[in-house]
């Protein structure tokens, strides 16, 4: 009995000596985490799992998909009708992309509210934004692959934006297309890049988490960990909490996959792409709508492109725009209100982006776009300077 146990330990020891994987996992489990994290902190791990779901479903879809302009649409229908569980793989992947953005948007909002982007976590924030940008590129290219009407025309509209670049704009666009319009070469390269980018995202996620582990997670008080009393081991407290949160997330996910799989999509993408016929309203997927609204709000083409990219780039400057000495929105009563107004503004931008740029929507779009930048360039620095914040607690454990 004793002999057998000793032998088993030796195998673990043998591996451990060459690659300390077991002690690494043990360390992760024992990793000290603030004890007061609320459910908004679940969305990091949920986003990680969403990424894994996309990669695994995507991998198996790629076994049956044909990235050729003549056969792409048909290959997706064949997956839906002929491949065993093909419909499940397809809907998991399509709904999964939306769910991934839901998780990431809530994750970002948490960061905005609790000041997680502030020193010393600026690089965690930067790598997070990089992940977000890569996600958007991946999602954009992925949507083109079924080669439906929205795939084709969405690709045409967005790639055409690069023609706004002065002097070399047209050449850049032809380079992106591999031709004189969106076509077979475009589809092929989008497939390759759509397959590749997620693995780059995985690498950036690892850097993102590594950077986080240097100083540990932020927490709802915004006050840094002062002693061991403020913390608990990650396992079992947050592992179990994460599993519970994952369960709730998967219930929402499953409801859409099995009962409303096309609710978040657009019917026009079930029409084969036709270069001769433009859909009545070209709309991107919901997670792009706020940026789409900003793009259309500026009357000039180049201006719109610059505004759209700036809307994301401004986030990189947040650690320096926000001069407030108080980190967490819980102790910033004015910021709290203005934060929710900002969220409302982004949702409004999304609603505006979904509508044709006519009539009242043109003006609403311009007001909302102006407000978006006003929030970052005027409100945030202004609050930092003038806001009277509440007294922050001495530590996580001791409330004042």
């Amino acid at each position, binding site marked *: 009995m004793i002999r057998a146990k000793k032998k088993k330990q030796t195998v673990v020891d043998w591996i451990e000596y060459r690659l300390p994987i077991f002690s690494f996992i043990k360390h992760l489990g024992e990793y000290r985490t603030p004890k007061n994290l609320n459910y908004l902190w679940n969305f990091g791990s949920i986003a990680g799992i969403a990424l894994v779901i996309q990669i695994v479903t995507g991998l198996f879809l790629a076994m049956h998909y044909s990235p050729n302009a003549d056969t792409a649409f048909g290959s997706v229908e064949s997956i839906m*009708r002929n491949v065993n569980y093909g419909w499940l793989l397809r809907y998991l992947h399509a709904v999964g992309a939306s769910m991934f953005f839901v998780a990431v948007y809530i994750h970002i909002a948490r960061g905005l509210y609790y000041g997680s982007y502030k020193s010393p976590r600026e690089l965690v924030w930067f790598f997070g934004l990089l992940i977000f940008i890569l996600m958007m590129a991946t999602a954009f290219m992925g949507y083109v692959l079924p080669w439906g009407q929205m795939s084709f025309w969405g690709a045409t509209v967005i790639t055409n934006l690069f023609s706004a670049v002065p002097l070399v704009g047209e050449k850049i666009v032809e380079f992106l297309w591999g031709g004189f319009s969106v076509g077979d070469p475009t589809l092929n390269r989008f497939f390759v890049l759509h397959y590749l980018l997620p693995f780059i995202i995985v690498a950036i996620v690892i850097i993102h988490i590594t950077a986080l582990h240097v100083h540990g997670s932020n927490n709802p008080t915004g006050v840094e960990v002062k002693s061991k009393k403020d913390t608990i081991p990650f396992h079992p*407290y947050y592992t179990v909490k994460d*599993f519970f949160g994952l369960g709730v997330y*998967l219930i929402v996910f499953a409801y859409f996959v099995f*009962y409303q799989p096309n609710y978040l999509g657009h*019917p026009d993408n079930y029409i084969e792409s036709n270069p001769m016929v433009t859909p009545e309203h070209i709309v991107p997927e919901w997670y792009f709508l706020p940026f789409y609204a900003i793009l259309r709000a500026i009357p000039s083409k180049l201006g719109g492109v610059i505004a759209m990219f700036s809307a994301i780039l401004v986030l990189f400057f947040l650690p320096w725009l926000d001069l407030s000495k108080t980190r967490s929105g819980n102790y910033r009563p004015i910021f709290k209100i203005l934060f929710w107004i900002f969220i409302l503004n982004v949702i409004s931008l999304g609603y505006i982006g979904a509508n044709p740029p006519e009539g*009242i929507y043109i003006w609403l779009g311009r007001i909302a776009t102006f407000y978006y930048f006003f929030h970052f360039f005027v409100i945030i620095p202004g609050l930092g300077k003038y806001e009277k914040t509440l007294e922050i607690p001495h530590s996580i454990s001791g409330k004042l």
Partner: protein
Amino acid sequence: MRIILGVLAIFWVISSSASVTTPAKPKDQINWPFQGIFGHFDKQSIQRGYQVYKEVCQVCHSLKYLHYRDLEQVGFSADEVKAIAASYQVNDGPNDEGQMFERPGRPSDLFVSPYPNEQAARAANNGAYPHDLSLMIKARKDGANYVYSLLTGYTNAPEGFQISDGLYYNPYFPGRQIAMPTPLTAGQVEYQDGTENSVEQMSQDLVNFLQWAAEPEMEARKILGLKVLLYLLVFTILFYLVKKKIWRDLK
């Protein structure tokens, strides 16, 4: 907060515009068997719908993503499917002389299209294209109600409405003018099971058929969904209880 909501409401009202050519919202009268969590296929209705497709729509509209063998799913026997497939001529080849030839269809063949390509279809229909119907229900907002409303919605144009040559008035079609003439008239198809063949009945059966054609996995999907959701509910509750137990010890 109330002010914000009020302002938003005013904007919303102003923004909704209507004109004479904006299509009418589809009728939402039928309780479709495929709707809801327990949605299922009414196989009898789908078989009748296939008969309507075969006798009326097929002349112009293809169903190119369906195989004849798929019909077994809605209650046709293997022999019936073989007979249906064999009643069509399918292009095949080249043979040993290098010629393309025609042969009777097999269950493994895709549904034969009335036209070889879109251009031929347009040429035969005054430039209008009778769309493939395999995905029609998914390719239109509120697809089932839209198709049903369209089929049953042909009426005379209102006073002063200008109809272009070769088009017909239908309030449910974008622009309210459609190139397809009224496809269904009462009594047009003799149902083998004796069901009344009004335009409404035929349209309903046809929509059930097209819904199946667009989403053959629907029934299996919803059944699996129930099992998955049940599992996830138990999973989530269990982990909630474990979480509560473990965290209670902290206090």
